[in-house]
């Protein structure tokens, strides 16, 4: 059983991520963007915009959305869905906040890496 299968994996603490910003977590099957909103909620999305795979982690975060830096698609941090006239979706990953530690769902990552 690899570490990815069952447990929640610790990826750092809240202070590592700038408010209204994001950091990248490298995983076996590519990068995941971990976002922090103005009111300290955290979300994890595949770091590839559904439009042209732009790195969402580099975009401007506003409310619970991020605007992709390449062509300004607006993606919901909660659902991964493209907003407005654009349609598409990126995969989201459950996160858990334990004190100020942030943990990502190993199981979700595992299915993703095998599938990728």
């Amino acid at each position, binding site marked *: 059983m690899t570490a*990815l299968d069952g447990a929640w994996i610790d*990826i750092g603490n809240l202070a590592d991520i700038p408010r209204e910003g994001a950091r990248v*977590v490298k995983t076996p099957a590519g990068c995941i963007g971990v976002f922090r909103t103005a009111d300290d909620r955290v979300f994890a999305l595949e770091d590839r915009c559904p439009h042209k795979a732009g*790195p969402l982690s580099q975009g401007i*975060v506003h*409310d619970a959305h991020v*605007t992709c830096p390449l062509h300004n698609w607006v993606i919901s941090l909660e659902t991964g869905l493209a907003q407005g006239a654009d349609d598409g979706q990126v995969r989201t990953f459950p996160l858990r906040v334990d004190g100020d530690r942030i943990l990502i769902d190993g199981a979700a990552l595992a299915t993703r890496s095998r599938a990728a």
Partner: protein
Amino acid sequence: MHELRKERLVVIGNGMAPGRTLERLFEAAPGVYDVTIFNAEPRVNYDRILLSPVLSGEKTYDDIIIHGAEWYASHGVVLHAGERVVAIDRDAKTVTSDTGLTTSYDKLIIATGSNPIVIPVSGHDLPGVLTYRDLDDVQAMLAAAERGGRAVVIGGGLLGLEAAAGLKQQGMDVTVLHLMPTLMERQLDSAAGYLLQHELERRGIQVLTKANTHAVLSTNAALGPPGVRGVQLDDGSEIPADIVVMAVGIRPSIAVAKEAGLDVNRGIVVDPSMRTSDPSIFAVGECVEAGGQCFGLVAPLYEQAAVLAAHLAGDTMPTFVPSATATKLKVTGVDLYSAGDFADGPDREEIVLRDAARSVYKRLVIEDDALVGVVMYGDTQDGAWFFDLIKKRTDISELRETLIFGQSYAGGTPLDPTAAVAALPDDAEICGCNGVCKSQIVAKINDLGLTTLDDVRAHTKASSSCGTCTGLVEQLMALTLGDAYNPAAVQPMCGCTDLGHDDVRRLIKAKQLQTIPAVMQELEWSTSGGCAKCRPALNYYLVCDWPDVYADDYQSRFINERVHANIQKDGTYSIVPRMWGGMTSSKELRAIADVVDKFDIPTVKVTGGQRIDMLGIKKEDLPAVWADLGQAGFVSGHAYAKGLRTVKTCVGTDWCRFGTQDSTGLGVRIEKFMWGSWTPAKVKMAVSGCPRNCAEATCKDVGVVCVDSGYEIHFAGAAGLEVKKTDLLTTVAGEDEALEIIVALVQMYREQGRYLERIWKWAARVGMETIHAQIVEDLERRRDYFDRFVFSQKFAQHDPWAERVQGKDAHEFAPMANIARLEAAE
């Protein structure tokens, strides 16, 4: 038969009332009179109601001018500004000014306005005791506010409170002294007066009621010229003050009329056709007494003007009958409305609504089933409707149950706002200042095909004075034009607000907003976090307006400006180091070659800006790349910035046989002086050594073409999406002056440009004359712009690459975690 001589009309006073009289007269009887105006104030006619926004900084003097110099010229009016009339000779029919200038008249209008009352307590004549009546007063108050400190305003009426709010906005500590138990007792009842006091205190203004001023205390004469130290009340208590503003009321200015033997009482007595006791002398405005009353609010003054203009044009029918007046308080943020007689009375009933949460208070006074008085605080939307009921003495017995809730509830009419305006009778007054009723506005909209608010203001005057009826006028336009009316004539900044860029910039300064959350809160953004359009714009406006105070919010910047590199389609980055004026060296080129090899950078390209771009660098490598480039003396080329990009040059007198000046030297000097500066949109420059213009200066934001006699300074060119030749701003002899002009020009653009608006679009909007006047002609203003740019550079001109080599924003360049290794470790 001698040619019929035009009648000579002389006007003493150049305020709003005589101004409106002449406007109506020229409409009704153009060319009948030769008009001469004597104005004690050294300036043209301006809107005195809008002095408050000038004091608080939301407007400038230019914004409130009613008749500019060209208005006088176009009507052949002679304006003696700064000449006070001291004598009227009624037999010789002449007037004489304090400089001895004498003019004869066939008809004379006295419009001397009123003087602010100064309570004759000891110390009332000290410097630092000001009044609040005209522009000189406002300028004196602004100068005092500049020095900061404490202000005491004597008088809690309309003017006193507006002075207090303005001085507070300008950063002074303010105390209001009011004789009566509650503020504005003539316009408000005690409940509304209390709420107003509470609101002013909430904004940090101290209010002392039942305060009777005993003396203005002077500074110690031994220490220097006497000035204000404080104010002493009857009870002996003292309030420290650096300035005192007396706003206790006005008194009609009747001296010159009295000396001429005209009938005077409190004001200059006139009959219903505005004629004084001398048949060829009229009077209009605040100096007038009609029907035993004097008038201070604009509405009755404009009614007087209309009557007088009609008589002068030969129509003797109209008469001036004083009517009930409404008051609207324009202290920014506080909505107040009152009309009619709201005093208590034995046979009077009242309906009162109090909503503490929304701090709303409404009171209606009813007598014999008719509305006689109304006081409204916090929600004044139905003011016009109530006032109409008062004037018409409408029987309100069936409306009684829902009367307090306003027109939209009367008789269960639907809630749609335009329906409220539609239900208003045709002669209902929409704009109180200018006495414009509903049918007049609708007629003008239809006859002239008006579609924007500015057109309606220009043609009907409605909402062009104090502006509080703007909402009503807009509803009327929506009603009349249907969907042809596009209220968003001003392009909103983004989906989070209705405000345009210009309003947002003006209000950031006027309300001194110094953080993005403050802007969003105060200007009522519809989203909590803004969006990718407004956040970068607001960040730039705040960096530009408060360079020393504002902490750059990097999370509100686009990724390129945040990490100081250009993001590419695959998520890698490109970087362009500065090459001053396009000059380089073997040492620099070796350093670039070594970095390209060391980091295996896939693409190296020469750019259109005369420098070298390296593309395809992984984000994690950026700090290390910058470290090596820094060793060779490179700094960031800001190739990603809404800021100064490059200053292209040709070799000029260094090498070229045609060179007229050292174009390379000037280009390098400009780039070294201005690099690092953030601007509304990218700024590209060039310096060509001669008119052959090899550096293509004439399609740049700012370009210099060197000529034998010096430097042609061009600007507002374009060479990207659109191609446009530059306009020649001016030609100067010296390099220093050329640099000063260029820096001042860019600073003016920094302060006025809309985010992402290139210089040529800004220049087209503002106009070459204004730019030429402020940058070329007005040396002092040019100097101010130059100094403000230099000041901002103290905070902007740091190499972002070197900062990141030393660890700034390290989080940008490293992943938060790497759990790919975790799996391998098992």
